[in-house]
Structure formats: structure tokens, C-alpha cells
């Protein structure tokens, strides 16, 4: 009988192995006792019959076990069923099927358990004792169905220590291998405990002892990690059979690692999920706000208003054209930017708005919008800087009354050039930036000429944070938001172009104005008829700048700082006799507005602009694309009638030579040199003695002369 059953058991095991684990809850398959079994718990099933048998014989442990585990060897299947039931209840055990199963189980039980009984004696109490410790299923020894039941009722990775014992017992013919398929979570500290009671069978044979020893070895817990080889191997083989990867032998080690790692994943799963979701969630929340409409009342009218006076540019259309040129952000991002711009126009009184471009930074990027406020609705902030400061050395005037006049320095700080008014020159437009669409827009401060002048001399990456300091030489007056604004101004001045004729000067300003201001206003030409795309590509003279050039002073309109200096000179005329300032500063002239770009300077034989047609194959719908070589990343396109400028890049000018930081200026001579302040060494001892000797010699000489004269006089008396 034993032989017959054991092969059967083997077969059972194999079947179970072949099947995927299924949750027992769903399955009350009392009938398919063979097919049902979780691959993980074949042995438990075996145990069922075994214990069942044994229970009949003697049930010393059953009462104990019942208390702890459902392994209660019953006098019959029935008794055992309550045990498993009780055990399973916490884990939502399906009690109703159990009895049914047991009924069914009984007949097979008779088959199965026979072979097992002789060996089953001792091991049974083991599972009984230990299963209670385990959170997993405890093998129900009553029947195979029970095995199924408790297998399934348990958590996915049951701890069949008991079943293992049973299987071990059964595994006379090298069935140890099947033990592996029990999904045992590690931490099965089940060492073999030979149960005291029971064991009505005969003494185990030699082979069985050997098997027992081998299994004991495998079950030995590792002191480091609390695992044991037995469980690990069983996990791995289960996993392999479940997933069936290709070339499993090649990636065997990886699977081993994965299984080991899987032990930890459970504990930390919850935490990880929380943290990782957040950033994505945040952004999504913010961008969700963009997608909402926002106004509830008066919808109709507002819609009309919006449509009539839409300051919002058609970003998607421009993006479409730029995409043909191979430039731009993805559709996803462009659309979000579009919505963000809409939000901007809704919250601020803006007359015209344009998507200027994107500047990349180290940590975060900037999305820039160029905005023109409506007339009179400027949100000017109070300016705190002094426009023109008299920078005479205050000390000189304060110390006049002192006796010892300190030498007066005739250093005069160069007068700060005043910034241009808003709406003119470099400050014609106001710029808003945000790091990502959905975040609030931040207005950039207006740019002052000093910032532009220094921005020309330094080359720094943007970090993405507006308040980051810009550490450079020469020291930049401001933080990153100022530097960003300065670069935007330079890029706009250098690369914003439009087809010839699109803009024209206003008629009132037909004459050339005085030097004070170049023509700085223009308007759209209503008669613009468009230029052929091929013409646009061939000749650069068909494009003109429509932004004023920034002079080297840092402004667009020349500011004559000399006039004010003259006034200052009058006051300080008495004191300052020497001046090192030139009396006449040459006025800086830049190319006037609307100059064609063919006049742009070349950079070392490289033309300043590169023109392309977007497509050679379909010329009728192609657009002309211009890339700037001076500011890499600046693009302009036109399809004859429409045009648009765009920038995407790091925000730096191109130079074929390396950047060299400017040398600090030589030390400035502040004070007139003269004996008062010139240092002199103190005379040394020899010099002093020599000096004294010389003086004494002079005195002696004088005395000698007198004495000679006296002598002469005395002689005369004789």
C-alpha cells in the first residue's frame, strides 16, 4: 500500500506544482482534490491523510493541537474538520466546504495515509505545534481536501513546516524535492521536532534517518538573515515554475537575489508608495487647476470678451510651425504652457502676451512669457534705488574743519546710469517666468543698464531658482532673477526679427529724432502682403530687427552722463582740481530700429544667421526657418504672412573662443602723491650721525670764522 500511495502522492505533488496558486476562498473545490491543491501545499495534503490515519489510532496530541492548530488528528475526518475550521476562521475560512471535503477526503484518505502512517507518527505533532506559530496554513491532516482548504485559506506564502515534515516522511523516493514547492516564507524556524506523543509506527529506517538529517541540515536557519536554505530553494523553484522565464539557468542567480530581496519589499512597500507618489501628484494637482475653467457666473459674456480681446497668443499654432523646423517642446508640454499663459492673462491686465521661450537651468528650467501691460494699468513697484547718486567722497567735505586734512581722494565712482523707464528700450516688455506650467508666474524685475553691462562679461549657468546668487567676477549686481532678465533682454535685442515690412514706423515719427532716442515705436503694417518664403530664405535683408539694439552702455537710448557731471563739477570745483574724467564721452550709437539682419556682424567668418527651408520636398507649404548662430537656440520662422520668434536653450551667447574672465583693473591711484603721504624710511643710525656730524662741522666752521676774525682784530690792535 505504501508503494502505491507514495507514487500517487508524488503525482499529486507534481500536479500541484504545475498549477498556479489560487486563493482558496474562491475555491471550494471539494471535488478536484488533486487539481485544486496549491502547488505550495502538496505535502500538507499528504499530511492530512496521514494524520487522519494516525488520529484514528491514537490522538494524544489532538486535544493540544486543536487548541493551537487545526491539525487535530481526529478520530476521523470529522473531528479534524472542526480543528481546521477553528484555525481557519480567522482567515476567513470557508467552513462549509470543509465538512464536504472531509467526506470526500475520507476515501482518499484511506489510500493516502497508509503509507504515511508508519512514518507519520512522530512528525505530526511537529506541525501541530508549530503551525500555530505560523501565520500560514497548518496542514490539515484529515484529508487532502483539508489540505486544499487550509492551503488556500492561508496567506499566499504559507509556512508548512508541518507539511514539510510530512513530506519528508513521505519522501522516501527522493521526494524532498517536492518540499520545495511549498511556498514557505522564510523564517520558518521549524526545526524538526520529533513529537513526543504519537509515533505508533515502527522505528524509521536508515534511509529515512538520512533523509531526516539532510532535511534538518537544509532547514538549518542561517544565523545572519533568519532564512534557511530549504525555504529559499522552495521559493525559488516555485517562482521559476510559476514564471517560466527563458534560459532560467542563466539567470538563476538573479532569481535567487530577487527572491531574497522580495522578503524585504513587503515591509517597506507602504512607505515607498507614499513618498513616490507625492511629486507627481503635486504637479498633477497644480496642472489640474489649469485645466479648470474657473469662472462660474456670466459665462457667456466673459467668453465673448475673451474672444474679442484675446491677448493670448496661439501657442499651439506657433508650436506646429516650429515643429516643422525641428524646434520646440512636445505637444504635451506646449499645451500645458498654453494653459498656463491663459491663466496669466486672466489674472493680470495684459494687453499682449507672447510665449518667449524656455531657458534651461541646472536644477529647473524657466518658461518665459513676454507681456505688455495695458496702458495705464502698469503694476509698477516703488523704486528703491537712487537714480543718480553724487558720489563725491563724503569724507573730504566732512573733514574740512579738521586740522589735519586727510588727503582727499579724487576717486569718483562712475555715475550709475539710470535705468530706462518701463515701456521703453530694454524695458519695453515685462517678463514673467515660471518653473513649470502650473506653478505661479513670477514677474521679473526691470533691468538696469549696469546689469546688462556686467552680464556681457560673465557666463554662468542658471540654476532654476530665482533667488540664487550669481557669484562671478565682475560681481553681478543682483541675483539670478536679474541675471535672467538681463540675458532675456540681450537675447531679445539680438534675435527678435520679423519679415521686412511687417512692422513699419508710425507716421508721426517720420523724421529722425534727435540723438536722445532712436525710433522706438512701431506698429504693424496693415498693408503687409507677405513675402515669398523662398525670398525669406535666400536673402537676409528681408528680415529686420524689431527690437532696439542695446548699446554698450546698457541702454537702448543713449544717456549722456556728462551733463550731470558738469553740474557736479561746479560744486566741487574748488576742491577737485584734477579730474581724470574725460570731458567728452562719445555718444554711443547703435543700429536703428528695423535694420535688416543682413547688417549683423559676422562672428569670425560665420554668418550670424542660418536659413533653412523646412522642407525641400513640398515647397509650397514649407516655411522659412532662421537659426541664430550668435545666440544658439534662437529661432524664427515665417510662412510668408505669419512669423514668430522663439528661444530654447541655455541662455548664453556663442563665441568660438573660450571665455576669459576679465582681469581686475589696476589699483587706482586715489590720492595725489606728495611728501605728505609718501612713505619714507626713517633715517638709519649712520645717516643720523653723518647728518649731525655735518651740522657740527658747519657750526665749527662758523665758529672758526668768528675766531679768526677775532684774531684778526686782535692783531690789528697790536
Amino acid at each position, binding site marked *: 500500500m505504501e508503494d502505491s500511495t507514495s507514487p500517487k502522492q508524488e503525482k499529486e505533488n507534481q500536479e500541484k506544482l504545475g498549477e498556479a496558486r489560487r486563493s482558496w476562498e474562491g475555491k471550494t473545490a471539494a471535488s478536484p482534490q488533486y487539481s485544486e491543491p496549491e502547488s505550495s501545499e502538496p505535502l500538507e495534503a499528504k499530511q492530512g491523510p496521514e494524520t487522519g490515519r494516525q488520529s484514528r489510532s491514537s490522538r494524544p496530541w489532538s486535544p493540544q493541537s486543536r487548541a493551537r492548530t487545526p491539525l487535530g488528528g481526529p478520530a476521523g475526518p470529522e473531528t479534524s474538520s472542526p480543528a481546521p475550521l477553528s484555525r481557519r476562521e480567522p482567515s476567513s475560512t470557508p467552513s462549509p466546504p470543509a465538512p464536504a471535503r472531509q467526506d470526500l477526503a475520507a476515501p482518499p484518505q484511506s489510500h493516502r495515509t497508509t503509507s504515511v502512517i508508519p512514518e507519520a507518527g512522530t512528525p505530526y505533532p511537529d506541525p501541530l505545534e508549530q503551525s500555530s506559530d505560523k501565520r500560514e496554513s497548518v496542514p490539515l491532516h484529515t484529508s487532502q481536501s483539508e489540505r486544499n482548504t487550509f492551503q488556500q485559506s492561508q496567506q499566499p506564502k504559507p509556512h508548512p513546516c508541518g507539511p514539510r515534515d510530512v513530506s519528508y516522511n513521505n519522501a522516501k523516493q527522493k521526494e524532498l524535492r517536492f518540499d520545495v514547492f511549498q511556498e514557505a516564507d522564510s523564517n520558518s524556524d521549524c526545526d524538526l521536532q520529533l513529537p513526543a506523543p504519537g509515533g505508533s509506527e515502527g522505528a524509521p529506517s536508515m534511509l529515512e534517518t538520512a533523509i531526516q538529517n539532510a532535511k534538518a541540515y537544509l532547514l538549518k536557519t542561517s544565523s545572519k538573515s533568519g532564512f534557511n536554505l530549504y525555504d529559499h530553494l522552495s521559493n525559488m523553484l516555485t517562482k521559476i515554475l510559476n514564471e517560466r522565464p527563458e534560459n532560467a539557468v542563466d*539567470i538563476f542567480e538573479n532569481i535567487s537575489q530577487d527572491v531574497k530581496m522580495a522578503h524585504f519589499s513587503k515591509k517597506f512597500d507602504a512607505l515607498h508608495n507614499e513618498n513616490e507618489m507625492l511629486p507627481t501628484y503635486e504637479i498633477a494637482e497644480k496642472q489640474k487647476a489649469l485645466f479648470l475653467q474657473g469662472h462660474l457666473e456670466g459665462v457667456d459674456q466673459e467668453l465673448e470678451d475673451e474672444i474679442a480681446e484675446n491677448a493670448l497668443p496661439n501657442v499651439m499654432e506657433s508650436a506646429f510651425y516650429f515643429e516643422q523646423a525641428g524646434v520646440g517642446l512636445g505637444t504635451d508640454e506646449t499645451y500645458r504652457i498654453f494653459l498656463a499663459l491663459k491663466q496669466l492673462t486672466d489674472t493680470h491686465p495684459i494687453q499682449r502676451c507672447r510665449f518667449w521661450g524656455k531657458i534651461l537651468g541646472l536644477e529647473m528650467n524657466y518658461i518665459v512669457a513676454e507681456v505688455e501691460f495695458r496702458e495705464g494699468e502698469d503694476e509698477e513697484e516703488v523704486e528703491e534705488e537712487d537714480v543718480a547718486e553724487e558720489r563725491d567722497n563724503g569724507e573730504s567735505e566732512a573733514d574740512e574743519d579738521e586740522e589735519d586734512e586727510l588727503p582727499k581722494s579724487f576717486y569718483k565712482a562712475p555715475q550709475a546710469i539710470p535705468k530706462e523707464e518701463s515701456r521703453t528700450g530694454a524695458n519695453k516688455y515685462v517678463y514673467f517666468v515660471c518653473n513649470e506650467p502650473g506653478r505661479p508666474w513670477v514677474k521679473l524685475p526691470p533691468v538696469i543698464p549696469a546689469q546688462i553691462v556686467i552680464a556681457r562679461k560673465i557666463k554662468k*549657468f542658471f540654476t532654476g531658482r530665482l533667488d540664487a546668487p550669481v557669484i562671478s567676477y565682475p560681481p553681478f549686481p543682483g541675483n539670478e532673477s536679474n541675471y535672467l532678465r538681463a540675458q532675456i533682454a540681450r537675447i531679445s535685442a539680438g534675435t527678435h526679427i520679423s519679415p521686412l515690412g511687417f512692422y513699419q514706423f508710425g507716421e508721426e515719427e517720420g523724421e529722425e529724432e534727435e540723438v536722445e532716442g532712436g525710433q522706438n515705436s512701431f506698429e504693424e503694417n496693415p498693408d503687409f502682403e507677405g513675402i515669398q518664403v523662398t525670398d525669406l530664405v535666400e536673402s537676409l535683408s528681408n528680415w529686420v530687427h524689431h527690437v532696439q539694439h542695446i548699446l554698450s552702455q546698457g541702454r537702448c537710448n543713449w544717456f549722456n552722463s556728462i551733463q550731470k557731471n558738469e553740474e557736479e563739477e561746479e560744486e566741487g570745483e574748488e576742491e577737485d582740481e584734477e579730474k581724470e574724467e574725460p570731458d567728452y564721452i562719445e555718444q554711443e550709437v547703435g543700429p536703428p530700429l528695423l535694420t535688416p539682419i543682413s547688417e549683423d556682424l559676422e562672428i569670425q567668418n560665420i554668418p550670424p544667421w542660418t536659413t533653412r527651408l523646412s522642407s525641400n520636398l513640398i515647397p509650397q507649404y514649407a516655411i522659412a526657418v532662421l537659426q541664430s548662430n550668435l545666440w544658439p537656440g534662437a529661432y524664427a520662422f515665417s510662412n510668408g504672412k505669419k512669423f514668430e520668434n522663439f528661444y530654447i536653450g541655455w541662455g548664453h551667447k556663442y563665441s568660438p573662443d573660450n571665455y576669459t574672465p576679465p582681469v581686475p583693473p589696476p589699483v587706482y591711484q586715489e590720492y595725489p602723491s606728495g611728501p605728505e603721504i609718501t612713505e619714507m624710511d626713517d633715517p638709519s643710525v649712520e645717516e643720523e650721525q653723518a647728518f649731525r656730524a655735518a651740522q657740527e662741522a658747519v657750526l665749527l666752521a662758523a665758529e672758526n670764522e668768528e675766531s679768526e676774525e677775532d684774531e684778526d682784530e686782535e692783531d690789528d690792535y697790536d
Partner: protein
Amino acid sequence: RDYRYDRVLFWGRILGLVADYYIAQGLSEDQLAPRKTLYSLNCTEWSLLPPATEEMVAQSSVVKGRFMGDPSYEYEHTELQKVNEGDKVFEEEIVVQIKEETRLVSVIDQIDKAVAIIPRGALFKTPFGPTHVNRTFEGLSLSEAKKLSSYFHFREPVELKNKTLLEKADLDPSLDFMDSLEHDIPKGSWSIQMERGNALVVLRSLLWPGLTFYHAPRTKHYGYIYVGTGEKDMDLPFML
């Protein structure tokens, strides 16, 4: 087709003054083997580029400025060379002509050596030598994706041997056989950014501006592409 490559990848685009070069690379089985590079001006006709030699690199390093866009364009470079003629030693000016193709080859090679990167775990090395694509690579986790050390240079390791023994003990020899980005000089020459929340991580090189590497964490998707002028940013230390 004719060249029997395992995979052909689009490498990027080098912008020239007159025309752009589109570059593609063909890979063979062994991922670390030198790749064959092809270029095209219009994406339809491709020509093979010769592999880069050190000579080429040295020559092209003297050429500065943009690419022209014409592969047969020649740069002229004057060098002073000492010429021994008999007993006299005098300097002569020699004009060296460098073809743009050569320059193209060396630039691509330099870029690959310097800034081609892959995430850790995407390739693994077998004891037999060839490196294979790791089929069980499931992508970096989010926390790993933000760290520079999870990305490797896609080239033979240069610095691995210089690591201390302690560090080496932590390495997994089948995965960590390339240099990681952590020790790139100058520090901070990579910019890591997450886009779309955490759905995509983008690394941009600051040394070769225009090199962009992307990876979607937890997926197998990653790749890099170069779109730029083909010039190294020599001012990097000033700009950081």
C-alpha cells in the same frame, strides 16, 4: 541592411552652418564593441564613417568653430613646425588641411566617450566577455533615478581601478563594470531633471551641450541623443 548590424540607433544631429548632419550608429552583439557610425545629410542616403583614430582626434582638436555642413570642406590650420634641414633648424609654417569628415568622426567619438550614458543594470557582463542587454532590467527606481551614481558611461572603464578597495567591495562585478557619473570632472557637469512629475528623468550634459539622456523610471525605456553644434563647452568651470 548591408552592414549586418544588430541594431541601428539614431544618434543625433550635428548642426552645421549650411546643412545638418544626421548621425546613426550600428551596434553589434557585444554592446561595448566599437560601433559603426553613419552619417547623412538628408536622412535618406547614408554613408559610413571611418572609425576614429587618435591621430584624427588630435588633428581635429585644433579646429574650432562650427561645422560647415559640407563633408568635403577643409579646414586650414597653420602650424609652426620645426624642420631640420641639414644643419639649420628653422621654423616653417605649415598649413594643415583637415577634412570636415575627419572632424565629424572625431567629434562623434569624443562625445561618445565622454558623455554617452546608460542606466545601471541595463547591461551586464558575462564571464565570457561580451556584454549583453540585461533582459531582467526593469528600470531604475525613483530614488535611484535621481542619483548620478546610477548612470554609467557607456565605454570601457577608465576609473574603476582607481577606486578604493572598500568601494570595490560594494560593486557587483556583473553590473558595475563601467565608470559612474559621480566622479565626472568638473563636478556638476550633469543636470538631472524630472519631467512630468516623476514620470521621466532627463539628464543633460553641460560639457557637451546638446547631449540629452532620458529614462522613464521603472520601465525599460532609456536613450540618449545629441543635437547640437558639435562643440565642447570649454568654459564650463566658469559657468558653474
